[in-house]
């Protein structure tokens, strides 16, 4: 071992306060260390996840039975708007950024992000953007125009309260922070890789984060421009999206969705990355078709920029446009399908260890595939016309976002919690958590496909007592509360395991990527010495000098 050349760790970009995990409040407020900032990201998104989840439970309570007087229509509109906005902008995207902020520097053998202070700025913009959004509740009412705030409903004459101004301002803050995080990650991945680690040797999670970051800097400006125009409309009486002054509500739809559809992939690509790390490690095999997984990510990202109008089929864009966007939307299923088959092929013939992390990854494969299939049905324009704005849409988007991204993030939490804290999460509680999540999730959302096909519209505070509608809605509500319970179990697992969890050591799962080559949690400078990288699995090479990967050209 001693003759293997270790490269010296890169010098720290700047002094950081202390190395232990908990150094009092000041070290967190002033943190520039990527690991501390990542933990702030993850704690903040957990906080907003709980709030967004409670909002979902309020909605499901209201819908448990037809004609309940629990939430009035106005309040219901506020709650579903805040639920969607919270989950998209304050939970899914920033939680994935949190994982990236923690893991990318470790996986490439760097001591920190390229710009540590910019990294901190990104986080604080997220937190204060989120707080600004929630301040609307006490400033006269939350926004109530849905998470995509269609004009002209979002304009002054129809939404005269300040809720939408807080919505636009808050998201502008979050959006700027997200762009900064994307830029920071791009430069980190391009400039700070350890010697020997070419871009074709980085872990797939890093690949996905890189592609994702490019998608962020390409797509977020569309959101920021739309938000600015909406704010100018509302505050300075401009006419961008009001018909009265000749403006175009349709332009809002085009602009919002030319951000909004890439956003869908911004919310899932890093999750694909987590799955691509977890499945090989717990199958005891290298990933099947590294090149295909990486290249299909690029294909998805490029295609995602050209499909936005499939959110607008109901608008009546015209036959030619509908066909073109229908076709481009179907195309995305191809590179996504490539990935699913690669993951299955990785498991095929492997020695699978059914840890909680792996269970969530396998759950992901099932539920995400269901969500992907219902997604393809939307690309068929007549089906889209039939089910648009019904619970079928709600079911689809939760299958890809909850059944997809959130399952992957749970897999990631169980996988990397020991690296972040030094202790393993409890497996028995974890398996209970997985079981409750899987059952609760499918109970809540599978039946919503049928409700949607039966014509139940989304975003309405109640529904008529048609045959079976009450029973199906009650089932969904019961499922939602099972999900709520599963989150409590998850949080309990944190609490128990942080104190009494099994001590993890450097590499509890037998992973082969660089983040496992340092202590858990890593020291402030991450590595005393970075192992040499000559293949995609540097730790495998270290452990098997007689049969290293690089001999096989990987």
């Amino acid at each position: 071992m001693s003759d293997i050349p270790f490269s010296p760790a890169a010098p720290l970009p700047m002094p950081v306060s202390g190395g232990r995990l908990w150094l009092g409040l000041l070290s967190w407020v002033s943190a520039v260390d990527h690991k501390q900032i990542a933990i702030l990201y993850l704690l903040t998104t957990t906080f907003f996840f709980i709030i967004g989840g409670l909002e979902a439970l309020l909605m499901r309570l209201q819908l448990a039975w037809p004609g309940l007087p629990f939430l009035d229509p106005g309040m219901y509109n506020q709650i579903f708007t805040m639920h969607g906005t919270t989950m998209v902008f304050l939970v899914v995207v920033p939680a994935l950024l949190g994982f990236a902020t923690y893991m990318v520097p470790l996986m490439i053998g760097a001591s920190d992000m390229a710009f540590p202070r910019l990294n901190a700025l990104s986080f604080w913009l997220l937190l204060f953007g989120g707080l600004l959004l929630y301040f609307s509740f006490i400033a006269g009412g939350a926004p109530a125009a849905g998470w995509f705030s269609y004009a002209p409903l979002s304009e002054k004459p129809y939404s005269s309260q300040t809720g939408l101004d807080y919505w636009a301002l808050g998201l502008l803050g979050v959006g700027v922070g997200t762009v900064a995080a994307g830029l920071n990650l791009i430069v980190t991945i391009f400039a700070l890789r350890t010697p020997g680690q070419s871009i074709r040797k980085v872990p797939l999670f890093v690949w996905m984060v890189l592609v994702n970051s490019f998608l962020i800097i390409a797509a977020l400006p569309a959101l920021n421009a739309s938000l600015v125009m909406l704010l100018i409309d509302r505050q300075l009486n401009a006419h961008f999206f009001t018909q009265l002054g000749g403006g175009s509500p349709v332009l809002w739809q085009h602009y919002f969705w030319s951000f909004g559809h890439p956003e869908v992939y911004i919310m899932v690509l890093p999750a694909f990355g987590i799955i691509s790390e977890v499945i090989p490690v717990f199958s005891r095999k290298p990933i099947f078709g590294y090149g295909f997984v990486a290249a299909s990510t690029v294909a998805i990202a490029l295609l995602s920029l050209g499909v936005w109008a499939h959110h607008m089929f109901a608008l009546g864009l015209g036959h030619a446009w509908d066909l073109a966007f229908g076709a481009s939307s179907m195309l995305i299923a191809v590179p996504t399908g490539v990935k699913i088959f690669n993951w299955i092929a990785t498991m095929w013939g492997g020695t699978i260890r059914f840890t909680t992390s792996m269970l969530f990854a396998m759950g992901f494969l099932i539920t995400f595939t269901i969500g992907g299939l219902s997604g393809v049905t939307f690309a068929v324009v007549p089906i889209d016309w039939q089910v648009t704005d019904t619970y079928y849409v709600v079911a689809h988007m939760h299958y890809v976002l909850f059944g997809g991204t959130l399952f992957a993030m749970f897999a990631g939490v169980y996988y990397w919690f020991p690296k972040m804290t030094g202790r393993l999460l409890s497996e028995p509680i974890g398996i209970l958590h997985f079981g409750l999540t899987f059952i609760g999730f499918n109970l809540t959302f599978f039946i919503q496909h049928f409700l949607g096909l039966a014509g139940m519209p989304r975003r309405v505070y109640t529904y008529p007592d048609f045959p079976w509608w009450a029973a199906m809605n009650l089932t969904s509500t019961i499922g939602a509360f099972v999900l709520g319970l599963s989150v409590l179990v998850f949080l309990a697992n944190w609490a128990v395991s942080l104190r009494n969890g099994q001590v993890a050591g450097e590499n509890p799962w037998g992973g082969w990527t660089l983040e496992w080559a340092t202590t858990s949690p890593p020291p402030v400078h991450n590595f005393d010495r970075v192992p040499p990288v000559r293949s995609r699995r540097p730790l495998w090479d270290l452990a098997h000098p007689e049969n290293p990967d690089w001999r096989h050209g990987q």
Partner: protein
Amino acid sequence: MQMEKSKMIMAWFLASEAAFFGFLILAYIYYRNAISSGPTAKSSLDPSVTAIYTVLLIASSGTVWIAQNKLKANRRSDFRGWLLVTVALGAIFLVGQGLEYARLLRHDVTISRNLFGSSFFTLTGFHGLHVLIGLAMLTTMLGMAWFSSIGSKEWIAFESIALYWHFVDVVWIVIFSIIYLGALL
């Protein structure tokens, strides 16, 4: 290494900014033909006056490039001189924009008057804001060059600022072509 990082992030940031301006420019073009009444670019703008300010802004891209070369050649007083010229040119451009805005407002062409006002002031306003930020960065460099020594770190920063300044310049050429030259058609 450090140089590559800050130039790299500036380049990608500017790519992202280009997309942002692209959406505002698209909105201007989209609305240009939708204006049914009130002022238009043709009826309210004076392209010949703005052309002079445009030339000055393009010139400032040249002077910042000269300043960069002087710094590279370690000729500090020349560097300060050309940097001062750059700042002056940028400031004159902003004054020109201010005078134009004042004239438009006197003729009751405002952001809330009609779609031309909304899209014109939003687009040129955001560009002006970018010029202002660029001026702030250049002036900071000037102050540092005057009152303290410029080391390698500041030199790297100046490379990025110059890149930003060229970008602001290019965006203005596009805006000028579409709004002002477009008004002549």
